[in-house]
């Protein structure tokens, strides 16, 4: 490890020598991951507008977490739905319920590794007993859970989805 550090230092030093003008900025940039992902954190107050938009789109809101096996298993269905229908006024939003201290450690690596294209936000509001019933009276708090809505209709599902099931539900909107 020390040897590696030494090599990196020497390499940095050598590159500094050859291109002195850009030295520090470049070595700083190199430390960052290739693609920088930030996930917006929400409380119920800030999430609520996302769940009540009155534009022409249909929103598919999936509540999930990286530790939730059935959630992870059904994510490809939501990704496929997003890819297939995003040009038809459909938007998929993945609301992660991972613990706040897991955002850097698990959620961001998960999104990168699985190349998740749908929008991901994280819900960090601890007062679950207050906000769960506001999202749906039908929701016991178990995940996966999904809300589909547009300005005319909204439906809540405490269940797992396959792509076919999800597509069938979306067609009712």
């Amino acid at each position, binding site marked *: 490890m020390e040897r590696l550090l030494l090599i990196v230092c020497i390499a940095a030093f050598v590159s500094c020598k050859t291109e002195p003008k850009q030295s520090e900025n470049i070595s700083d940039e190199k430390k960052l991951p290739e693609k920088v992902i930030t996930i917006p954190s929400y409380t119920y107050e800030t999430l609520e507008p996302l769940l009540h938009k009155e534009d022409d789109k249909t929103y598919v809101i999936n509540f999930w*977490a990286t*530790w*939730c*096996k*059935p959630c992870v298993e059904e994510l490809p269905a939501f990704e496929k739905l997003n890819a297939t229908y995003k040009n038809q006024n459909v938007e998929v939003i993945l609301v992660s*319920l991972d*613990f*706040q*201290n897991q955002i850097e450690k698990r959620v961001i690596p998960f999104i990168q590794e699985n190349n998740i294209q749908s929008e991901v936000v994280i819900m960090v509001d*601890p*007062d*679950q*007993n207050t906000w*769960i*019933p506001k999202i749906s009276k039908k*929701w*016991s*708090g*178990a*995940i*996966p859970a999904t809300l589909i809505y547009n300005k005319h209709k909204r439906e809540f599902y*405490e269940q797992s989805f396959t792509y076919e099931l999800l597509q069938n539900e979306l067609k009712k909107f």
Partner: protein
Amino acid sequence: MKKLNILLILTVFAVITAFAVKNSSEGYKIGDTATDFKLKNINDKMVSMADFKDAKGFIVIFTCNHCPFSVAYEDRIIALDKKFKEHGYPVIAINPNNPEVSKGDDFESMKVRAKEKGFTFPYLFDEGQKIYPQYGATRTPHVFLLNKEKGALKVAYIGAIDNNSQNESAVTAKYVEDAVNALLVGEKPKVNFTKAIGCTIKK
């Protein structure tokens, strides 16, 4: 007229069965009588609530090994048991998951986890998953506080342990503690139903 009578009887029957089915699938509501169970504990002995002759009630918690919310609450579950066992309300933990679909929730792993954490309460395995649907547990952890009233175990509280799963120091409402404390002074819990995020019970 006879036809009408038959129709009436059929309708009444249909309504009754519809309600009966509805109730059993939705599980217990506050005030319902909870059924006892006979499930295998981590020491390989069978445990029923009837074994606890002196108990005034039970803090029944559906929980498991793998779920991060269950893990986050382990220390708080031990604390609940230590605090209320001597007052007649011991904790009974039940793992409702099917270990074939929920890795780490098998009986042997339950024994390991209970030993690691030093569980002070029975940790039972809902073999065949017969009990959790009767209670209506949907997630882990999911608490059912039972109170003995005239020999029957009545459901007094259903829901979460407190209002902050991720950060114990930020808890502002201890739902289960408050509910047991109410029962201890002969009152009904003020808050008798709460919701929380948890892991789905794996079938």
